[in-house]
């Protein structure tokens, strides 16, 4: 038994679900491969696993490029983490679109502002 929720809520719930499922599958595959390939079951925090040199979008673009090159545990994990982090971002975009279609300009403004702030945070910081 539950109350009737808006189309936006159903959409956002769906986006979160897909993001979570995809990232969970990729991260699990990556970690499993990591354990099998290295025979290592502890986290060694070596420099190879550290992402360096750039903001989140640099991380995203280098991840997408790398996954085309090889399906290494690191690249699979990176893709999982990238999808995970993009999930909340995508649901804000969904908010902007939904309120735009509804012509609810107050909330179009609010969601657009959030989107602008997050984008600034991801690009500039």
């Amino acid at each position, binding site marked *: 038994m539950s109350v009737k929720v808006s189309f936006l809520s159903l959409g956002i*719930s769906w986006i979160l679900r897909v993001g979570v499922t995809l990232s969970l599958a990729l991260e699990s595959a990556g970690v499993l491969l990591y354990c099998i390939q290295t025979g290592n*079951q502890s986290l060694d925090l070596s420099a190879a696993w*550290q992402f360096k040199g750039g903001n989140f979008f640099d*991380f995203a673009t280098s991840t997408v490029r790398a996954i085309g090159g090889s399906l290494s545990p690191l690249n699979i994990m*990176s893709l999982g983490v990238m999808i995970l982090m993009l999930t909340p971002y995508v649901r*804000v975009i969904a908010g902007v679109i939904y309120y735009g279609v509804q012509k609810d300009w107050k909330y179009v403004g609010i969601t657009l502002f959030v989107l602008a702030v997050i984008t600034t945070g991801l690009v500039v*910081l």
Partner: protein
Amino acid sequence: MIGVLFALLFAILAGFIGSILGLGGALILTPILVYFGVPIQYAIAASMVAIIATSSGAASSYVRDGLSNVRAAFYMETFTAVGAIVGASLTGYIVLVHAEALLYYVFAAFLATSFLALGKMRNRELPEVNQDGMAKWLKLEGSYYDKPAKKQIDYKLTRPALAGPGMFFAGVAAGMLGIGGGAFKISVQEMIMGMPSKVSTATTNFIQGMTALAGASVYFTSGFVYLDLAAPLAIGTTVGSLLGARVLPNLTNRTVRSVFLIVLVVLIIDMVWKGMTAP
């Protein structure tokens, strides 16, 4: 160093508790990681990624059930997102001027205030709210099906103008400390806006991922993100949060608030301790 399996297990626990209480789980994750020798910056960075996992995992259920108030969340994100970026940017500066102790005391004082205010409301299942003009204008209200009460609860929220700065402060705390942001958000929503405890937990879970994302880029740029640490933690907190999201709807608002009050005490002690030991 920590074993993968062990990291998974305590991340599941962190995600479970986090999703029920509206705390990202960093409160549990960061100290354990530090205890096992992970440098604090790396621990906070990995926790940030884990928070996003807890948030999305739990909120995927809460939003569908109408337990997260999406409208209120978007409104408050305008403040928490800015706060998170300001907080993350200020961290270096605060260390530079040796104001960490002061910062921790300010946060502790705020949490102590909310402990007192929420303590008074301890036995009330639902708050009584007179909605003000701005809240009406923003249509800040909602309804959810309450399983323990076996009925639909319609609620209204109030004072968004006052909640805004509070949410900004919560964002600063999250961006700066990497922990405690959830406790601030819950306090603001319940004390100022009159949100029912369960809705507050669920809405905070929803917002949390966004606040963490806003601050997370700093950690990427600084090279603090280790994927072999972040990925197992994210797996664990996701699984934990999916489990927790099945539990919360069955609890009463009173139970949720009582457990939250205990966590508040732990947080206050933690902050005062950090203030006393800060350089």
